[in-house]
């Protein structure tokens, strides 16, 4: 966003960087949004309206990864990224939670094709565009393994 670039150039003092997961179109001034932004005196309603408007094109309630830069004057900028890798993995694998004992207990398996598809989506994220697909894939495999989800060549 041009606005974001301009802010960096004018070097507004940053108070904090906040990361959270918010359902697309579903931001409300309740936890976690409320306390996370409230602590830095950011206008909750403005964030909710803005975030909800900008995520109208996603399927409602898809968990979006948001990064908010809070400035010392209580203004803020935010970027919205596609759903977190773990969300995609869980969706692809059809499970609700990862394994309770990753490394020891495998919940389910996914194929390399799944990893590839997820990596392609993630590469469209604003800050991943410079990353080679292979690195993104490795990171996804790492997350999957730590969730107790094994990656195999082909699913039978």
């Amino acid at each position, binding site marked *: 966003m041009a606005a974001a670039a301009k802010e960096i150039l004018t070097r507004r003092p940053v108070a904090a960087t906040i990361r959270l997961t918010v359902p697309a179109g579903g931001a409300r001034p*309740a936890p976690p949004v409320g306390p996370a932004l409230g602590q830095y005196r950011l*206008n909750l*309603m403005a964030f909710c309206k803005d975030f909800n*408007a900008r995520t109208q094109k996603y399927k409602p309630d898809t968990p979006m990864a948001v990064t908010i830069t809070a400035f010392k004057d209580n203004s803020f900028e935010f970027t919205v990224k596609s759903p977190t890798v773990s969300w995609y993995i869980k969706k692809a694998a059809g499970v609700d939670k990862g394994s309770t004992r990753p490394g020891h207990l495998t919940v389910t398996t996914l194929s390399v094709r799944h990893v590839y598809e997820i990596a392609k989506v993630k590469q469209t994220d604003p800050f991943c565009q410079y990353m080679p697909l292979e690195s993104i894939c490795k990171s996804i495999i790492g997350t999957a393994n730590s969730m107790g989800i094994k990656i195999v060549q082909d699913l039978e």
Partner: protein
Amino acid sequence: MLAWNFIKHFPCKNLSRHILRDSRVRPLCFFTSSTPPSSFSIFASLSTSSSSSSSSSCFTDEPFAAPYLSVRIHCPKHALDPFSEALLCFGASSVAVDEAIEEADQDETSLASKEICIESIFPVHEEVKMCISQAANSIGLKEIPKFKVEMGDELDWITKNQDLFQPVEIAERLWIVPEWTSPPVAEAVNIILNPGFAFGTGEHPTTKLCLLLLQSLIKGGEAFLDYGTGSGILAIAALKFGAASSVGVDIDPLAINSAIHNAALNNIPLEKLELHLAPIENSSSGREIPLQKEQFDVVIANILLNPVMNLADHILSFAKPGATIGISGILSEQLPNVRERYSPFLEDISVATIGDWVCMSGTKKEEFIDN
């Protein structure tokens, strides 16, 4: 108290069914499911809010006072980004890094420059230790970072949020003033508000656009419909500008609650302002808002792209032919879709813009083809 008068207009009949359908709305203390949609429970809630109307905390009821865990984690600086991402994957609701931490706060000066403090929020039932260790493992940290868990201070962020609301000058002699402040310009048209957690303080560009539109449209005696009323700000403003009556509709019971309170703050008599809780899923059979079609001279819907598109027919149906309809809550990039959706039914379409936000208005065609 004026607030009690609004109970008559509060559509009690199907209230509990409407509210309990949306799982996102936290259980409300005043709408109990076991008892039938009783005016008793509503009386109870309104009595607490009207008796404490002077305090700004009257809307800090159950839904937003939901508990949470506030966790402070010490993380090695080099691993900050991957660790934050990992925490979110493993159960943290939010992760914040304070840029303004003084180095003097760090315990050991040798570690001061190598560690950074993360403020994290977790849901109450979450296993914080397990999440942190899984997050640390997944990025290859050798040790589990030190952390401290505290119960979240609900009141703290709620009060901080309310403190932000300052009097706003929308136009010359039109001010929106928080309940706990006295109007800066006593002779201006002052709308007193306590929005609670409903949308509409006058600060947002879309609210401003709608207020300015309303100011230009209302000449006196109009019937106004505020679809997606939030705090009730537009409905109340219309009455202050001279409209004969206002109706506010919203799917959020907390918004209706806020609007009732704000109407009382502005001494709006009950005959002038009706409020209705709309069903969340708009089914064509039954469950309709008890309003007549083609009843309103001015209709404004300041919501979001999807509702405004999905509810287009519905919103249009309440307007008289020749009435003015205003649509906002949409970004300028979303305007073409909205224009396309509404242009078969509206003429003289004009668009006002503030920043990225637009308000589209037009007049409902006298006759349109029903297909």
